[in-house]
């Protein structure tokens, strides 16, 4: 190779690498007039993205929405917040992450506050709203209408066992099913705890770190109500055999969907946003027979039927250029103010619209929505379904592991497992010390 060839070769190679690096470093907005939206594939978010596209056409921008898997979502967002490249201009945000993402988000004062503050207080940072809720995701008990009559719907844990056994006698494989692995614990242990006067931390129902500190927090996992609730699940699997052992190995909500839509389960604990998927004849064998009800209450319950409904929202990361943030906020304002987009949250998917005005309209006009609303947002005991401080994912994960450990071990060891969990909570939970 001659000197000239060598030089040309190396210079071209170097220029190519530098060019690629420079192109990669360009923010997405500089490559076009697109707003890039970070979201995970889910019926409710897919519907919202469709509406964003409609709104974007009116405001003269394009929407680029590459889907991100749920398991990678927080990592992708931390890269957005702390990395040099601001890839996303609008991000999906939910109540769990309100306090985790808060410092990195732009205030959304300009967006019309169509939602109720009691469902969105955890999305504030330094007193300002950092998220625009689009939907309230709420847990419900789906059931097979062909197996369970409406007047036989269970209201207590004991009645649930009986109803499940009765349904199994009619030929369905399992009575009840729900997700138990991380991060799906809402669909087994968590709803049953809150329905039985038990909670991960005492005082019961405290959700912010300030509330817990004021109440002199202690782990609630060794309390009688808690241990009794775990024992109820143990019995459901091992004694009554109404629940599949898959719950004990950390089943996911996808397992629940598969089993319910395949016709293998009478009752499935899931998010109401799966309603229209379950009723989709192309996907579900039980499409014509899907009903829903609230959660049964445990023997220690003191406040009546429990319901949880918390927000999924949209936010704008702080580290974007001012003009891009302005466009993103304009679009979110359009979306939050659009009644049709909000109605579709219910009609197309099965979720609860975040707009209070639309909720009221649907209560007047749609009896089925009215029932969902009463079972969740309007339940006598309305709970928030997460802890609103940064270590919640760790607490959730530890609890999920302990729950499956308790369910796979002998019944008499449940208290021992929960004692170890309490120790872990004390070791891992205290936020200020960390």
């Amino acid at each position, binding site marked *: 190779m001659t*000197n000239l060839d060598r030089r040309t070769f*190396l210079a071209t190679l*170097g220029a190519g690498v530098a060019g690629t690096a420079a192109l990669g470093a360009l923010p997405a907005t500089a490559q076009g007039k697109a707003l890039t939206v970070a979201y995970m594939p889910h019926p409710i978010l897919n519907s919202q993205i469709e509406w964003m596209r409609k709104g974007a056409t009116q405001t003269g921008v394009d929407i680029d929405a590459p889907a991100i898997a749920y398991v990678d979502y927080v990592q992708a967002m931390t890269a957005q917040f702390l990395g040099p490249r601001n890839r996303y201009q609008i991000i999906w945000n939910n109540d769990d992450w309100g306090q985790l993402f808060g410092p990195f988000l732009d205030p959304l004062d300009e967006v019309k506050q169509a939602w109720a503050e009691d469902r969105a207080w955890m999305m504030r940072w330094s007193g300002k709203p950092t998220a625009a809720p689009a939907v309230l995701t709420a847990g419900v008990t789906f059931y097979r209408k062909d197996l369970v009559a409406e007047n036989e719907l269970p209201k207590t844990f004991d009645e649930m066992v009986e109803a499940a056994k009765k349904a199994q006698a009619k030929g369905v494989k399992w009575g009840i099913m729900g997700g138990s*692995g991380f991060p799906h614990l809402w669909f087994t242990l968590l709803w049953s705890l809150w329905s039985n006067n038990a909670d991960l931390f005492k005082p019961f129902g405290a959700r912010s770190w300030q509330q817990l500190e004021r109440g002199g927090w202690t782990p609630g996992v060794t309390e009688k109500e808690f241990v009794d609730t775990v024992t109820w699940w143990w019995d459901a699997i091992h004694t009554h055999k109404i629940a599949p*052992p*898959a719950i004990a190995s950390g089943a996911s909500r996808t397992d629940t969907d598969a089993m319910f839509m395949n016709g293998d389960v009478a009752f499935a604990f899931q998010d109401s946003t799966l309603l229209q998927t379950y009723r989709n004849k192309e996907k579900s064998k039980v499409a014509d027979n899907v009903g829903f009800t609230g959660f049964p209450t445990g023997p220690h319950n003191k406040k009546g039927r429990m319901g949880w409904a918390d927000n999924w929202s949209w936010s704008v990361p702080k580290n974007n250029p001012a003009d891009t943030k302005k466009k993103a906020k304009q679009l979110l304002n359009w979306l939050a103010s659009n009644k049709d987009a909000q109605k579709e949250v219910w009609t197309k998917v099965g979720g609860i619209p975040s707009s209070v005005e639309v909720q009221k309209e649907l209560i007047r006009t749609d009896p089925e929505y009215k029932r969902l609303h009463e079972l969740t947002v309007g339940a006598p005991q309305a709970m928030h379904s997460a802890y609103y401080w940064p270590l919640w994912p760790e607490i959730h994960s530890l609890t999920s*592991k302990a729950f499956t450990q308790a369910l796979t071990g002998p019944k008499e060891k449940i208290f021992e497992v929960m004692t170890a969990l309490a120790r872990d909570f004390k070791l891992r939970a205290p936020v200020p010390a*960390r």
Partner: protein
Amino acid sequence: MSTVPGVPPVAGGHAARVAPGRVTVRPRTRRALSWLDRDTPFQYQLILLPALVMLLFEILPIVHGIVISFTSFTIWNPEGGFAGFRNYVRVLENPLFYRYALPNTFIFLGLAVGIEVSLGLGVAVLINRRFPGQRIVKTLLILPLLVAPVVAGLMFYWMFHAEFGLVNQLLASLGLPGVLWFNRPATAFGVIILADVWTWTPWFILIIYAGLQSLPPEPFEAARIDGAGPWSTFRLITVPLLYPVLSIVVLIRSFDAFRVFDIVWTMTGGGPGNATETFGTFVYRIGYLTVNWSEGAAAAMVGAVMIMVVGILVYGTFARVVWGKQES
């Protein structure tokens, strides 16, 4: 010749080809550029770019990881601050680490790599001879290598699923009761190892087969003349001659097995309970699920030290065996 006073002439360099009186390049820049032309061996110039990439994407992140492992850098405290050895202490005193992640990782490493190298060696010897359909068999054998470990994990998860799994359906068709594969630590761990063996044995086959192809024929001919049987030939000639290849494959795969993550995460998530937690899932849990990068980085550094020790031990053992044999 250089046209700039004070700069030594460069034989055959770029400067030598520039006409006198037309030099506009600064001496320092010109000297730097002339490095491309001079007598620097071309291989060094070629290495420059990969070295730069390695520096940027491997060395610097490792250094960054070491630095943040001594801080309290988390998503809720992005400013960090010096934390000394606090993160390391938290990792080492975490029961999940010493009670589950560490023992499970070494059990997995020993069993998975042991089975894979044994099967790989056996199959490589079997296909190292002429037989009808040899090419098709060789192609089929390496197919699992084309499957990403995360996909393999999901495949095995659904195959062994308690409700829909193919394996339980097969057992049922034989009149046998289904097994709750992921409910018991032993069976869950067994399925994980099976998935890993399915994924990685072809890699062993491929490398060992290449090693077998390169062995000299003379020792085998001598053994045949001396009347050695197939087992004696395999044990006393094939395996010792393959030691250099075996040592490298075992070493590389041991490093890889130590950080196993995708197969475990997709199949059991470390459960039931903590029964199948490995070092990889432990680091992910600390660093990413709880978004505590400092502690996650400290955990990764602890792992790096451990795998270095394991590497030295494995390599040292093989080196002793290999060099010992060669000397004798």
